[in-house]
């Protein structure tokens, strides 16, 4: 027979395990690689495909935000005086409004891992996306140049100019390091 102390210890241990389980997903480690941006996207839906679409887009939105976000902070603070004399109470109300606009063209944002769980009539999905920057951009440019249709469309975009600038900077850096 177990003593009440043993039972209590077991219960505490079980509670710790359940508590640590969190959302039930495995680890959310994000690797460190200067050539890539990484992001997890999570979503749930009664439709499996919709859950995957949302999760993918969420992850892409995170990457897009990291790449190009225009933050517009609107902050208002005001104080209101209520009462008078000694009973005067200063009530400070502080409100904060933030707007963030993101617009980015992502070329080569690949899904690397995906997981799903089935809840009660609902699918929970999470997707891990990687986005190449730095050296990977050079390879991507070569690939894009092979696809003429896509390339013509892409060349007209701001995204092309940005990528081209980055690749040029990177190539100049490589030259300066004697890598050619």
């Amino acid at each position, binding site marked *: 027979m177990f003593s009440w102390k043993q039972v209590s210890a077991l219960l505490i241990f079980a509670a710790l395990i359940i508590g640590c389980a969190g959302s039930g997903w495995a680890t959310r480690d994000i690797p460190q690689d200067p050539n890539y941006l990484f992001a997890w996207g999570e*979503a749930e839906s009664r439709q499996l495909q919709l859950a995957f679409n*949302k999760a993918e887009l969420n992850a892409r939105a995170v990457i897009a935000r990291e790449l190009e976000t225009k933050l517009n902070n609107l902050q208002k603070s005001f104080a209101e005086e209520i009462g008078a004399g000694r009973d005067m109470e200063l009530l400070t109300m502080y409100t904060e*409004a933030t*707007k963030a606009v*993101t*617009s980015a063209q992502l070329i080569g944002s*690949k*899904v690397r891992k995906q997981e799903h769980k089935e809840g009660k009539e609902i*699918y929970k999905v999470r997707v891990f996306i990687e986005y190449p920057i730095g050296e990977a951009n050079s390879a991507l440019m070569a690939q894009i140049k092979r696809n003429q249709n896509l390339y013509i469309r892409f060349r007209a975009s701001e995204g092309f100019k940005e990528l081209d600038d980055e690749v040029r900077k990177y190539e100049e850096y490589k030259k300066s390091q004697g890598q050619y």
Partner: protein
Amino acid sequence: MNLSSRGIPVVFVLIITMSTGLPRSYPRWFLQQSKTGCPDLVVGYSRSFKNRDSSVDYAFRNGCVNYIRQKHTFISGGQAFWDTEIGAFWLGSDIEETFDTARVEPAMEHLKVVDTFYSDHMTAVLLSPSECRISSTMKSRQGLSGKKTPSWVSRLPKDGRYEYALGVAQSYYYEPSSWLEAERSARKSLAGALFSIVRSLEKQAEQYSAVVDESLSVHLANIEVVERWRETGSGIYYVLIRMPR
């Protein structure tokens, strides 16, 4: 009939499995298409009709459409979500695939049936544009139950020659619809990986909300299906595709 205590659950499981009507095994060429050794293969699907020839005929036509789609597809349109503190809401999608339908008839002239798979609910044909002989091993059946889920279902392969994408679909009433939806979802995922424009507007005041919009405009060429898998427990269909870099 006198059933032992062990026999009852076995019979019960058997009845449930049979009542779903889904095949418990598929030919290896269906599950591991890229390992057949022939280039440019394509699979066509159809519901299984009483007349087997009709099923094969429908599957053949579907295979020809899939063949043209794999050769060249243009994916365009967009989708948007409204993200709030209580969850994300779908605002709609107009993503569509277009391909040259005029090329389907000529494809029907030169594609040949390499092998056929027939089950109660689905007929699948393997088509090839060239002379192709697949081994008896590739024609043999591979069961799904008890098999370990392939690693590519959760972690996509990575190599220098191809871009990979995974498509998923839940179980629809007609099995071919599930496989076709998984293939379509894989093409959409591949298009998103190659080129997408993401725009979002987030607002944080007393409550957080964001509208996220994604636009696609991508040509896909020379896609091939690498592998297929069906999770017997959850009934989820997976298709792994790739496109040369």
